[in-house]
């Protein structure tokens, strides 16, 4: 297989407590970011509609028009669907732009689908998440059709890491 996010830093933020491996029969929902078409054109069009000197300034697209621009190719959709169905995954939904797929499957299936992944449960207060403790890969036939698989590696940010407001007087500039 091929690793789609080999440069994603793997770490468990300090406020998450490891609770052990997830049972193979539990369900996970993964987000597949399908390769889009016409991304170069998308960028050029964005420049045109955003540049006040362009005659296209302000001529925005509807979501449906954006969808027809970036919608994944039939080849991409077929390759990804074939790959998913080959693992018995049918419970999927898409979005209007068809460039994301959300699929539900058991942990056992997810770990077979994404070789290298190993799902664990982590807890922070009342919140629990499942994440892989190691890098995932995908079959080489679909690697060129996917940007990444969401819900495997990145933890939700905590209050400390998130850009957030805080109460109380600030420390001096040079503490």
């Amino acid at each position, binding site marked *: 297989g091929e690793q789609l996010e080999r440069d994603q830093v793997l770490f468990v933020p300090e406020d998450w407590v490891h609770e052990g491996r997830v049972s193979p029969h539990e369900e996970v929902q993964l987000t597949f970011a399908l390769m889009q078409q016409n991304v170069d054109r998308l*960028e050029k069009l*964005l*420049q045109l509609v*955003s540049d006040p000197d362009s005659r296209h300034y302000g001529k925005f697209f509807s979501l449906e028009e954006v969808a027809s621009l970036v919608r994944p190719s039939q080849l991409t959709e077929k390759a990804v669907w074939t790959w998913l169905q080959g693992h018995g995954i049918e419970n999927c939904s898409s979005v209007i*732009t068809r460039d994301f797929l959300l699929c539900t499957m058991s942990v056992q299936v997810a770990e077979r689908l994404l070789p290298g992944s190993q799902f664990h449960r982590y807890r922070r207060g009342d919140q629990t998440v499942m994440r892989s403790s190691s890098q995932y890969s995908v079959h080489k036939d679909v690697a060129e059709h996917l940007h990444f698989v*969401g819900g495997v590696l990145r933890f939700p*940010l905590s209050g400390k890491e998130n850009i*957030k407001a805080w109460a109380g007087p600030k420390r001096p500039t040079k503490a």
Partner: protein
Amino acid sequence: FHLGVTPATLRTRYNLTAADIGSAANNSQAVAQFLEQYYHPADLAEFMSLFARGFKHLTEVERVVGKQGGGKAGLEASLDVEYIMSTGANIPTWVFTNPGRHETQEPFLQWMLLLSNMSAVPWVHTISYGDDEDSLSAAYMNRINNEFMKAGLRGITLLFASGDSGAGCRHLTKENVFRPSFPASSPYVTTVGGTSFKNPFKVTYEVTDYISGGGFSNVFTMPDYQVSAVSAFLKGAQPLPPESYFNRTGRAYPDMAALSDNYWVVTNLVPIPWVSGTSASTPVVGGILSLINDQRFLKGLPALGFLNPRLYKLKGAGLFDVTEGCHLGCLDEKVEGNGFCAASSWDPVTGWGTPNYPVLLDAFMD
């Protein structure tokens, strides 16, 4: 004289009169939350009754997308809602709440999916969220950029807080480097930094808030729209940090700024002072841009959409230039805690500066 930033303080400083409120039929604005944070309608009502007497405003959120949990209100959520509805007064406001209910969801990614799946969404979105660029995969960031482009092509304005760690610092084995934050460093969003009043108890001119996030991306190259402005800064007279600390050819941020210090927020029915951060400045700018959208809609003009190409062409017109102060950087011998410093015109602490509403409105109305 004042005892902290309230809607009245902001509206005075940014020259918003009581008549500067929304009235267009198809206008709307939104804030998005990704933590387990909720706003309470009662807090918003109390905030408005305490602090928003001098202008017409709404006291209820129009729509909540996602499920608000129970329990205590979050300071962040209260802040965002209360201040976008204070500058963007009388404009219908949505709250996107994405706490990540499924155990394998990425809340920020879920919000992006929602945008890709809703035909009608507000014109202006403010988001206080960011992660270290160096912790994220290039594949992920590039794809999120595509999503930002999709939103921009639809005329949606995305505003991100620039962060509260100044230039940031990444401690490497040999020497330190600054640490940019994503999505603040995306070339396809408008990033908002922070300022303080020169005299914290008076409506004076503004200086940098030392926490204001800013710098240069190590991943994304500098977009054309900002080359001239950033080159002028780099060639300017002020001393720069050593070149090894930042990538002078990367996307530079923030793009603009607003006050980010000493806010009053009502949360769980208690007024809280001293709330600070670019989480505060971002909804303030969001509300002001929504007011400009409102005036544009009334004249039959389209929304502002992705702002930066037009913002940089203004060359600072309609913005109060912030020229005093520096932000945080690495606490080491070479930079001694400093990142970049403000300068005339654009700088990587406060961008082009803070909004002077009537002039900015004029500039954006042709």
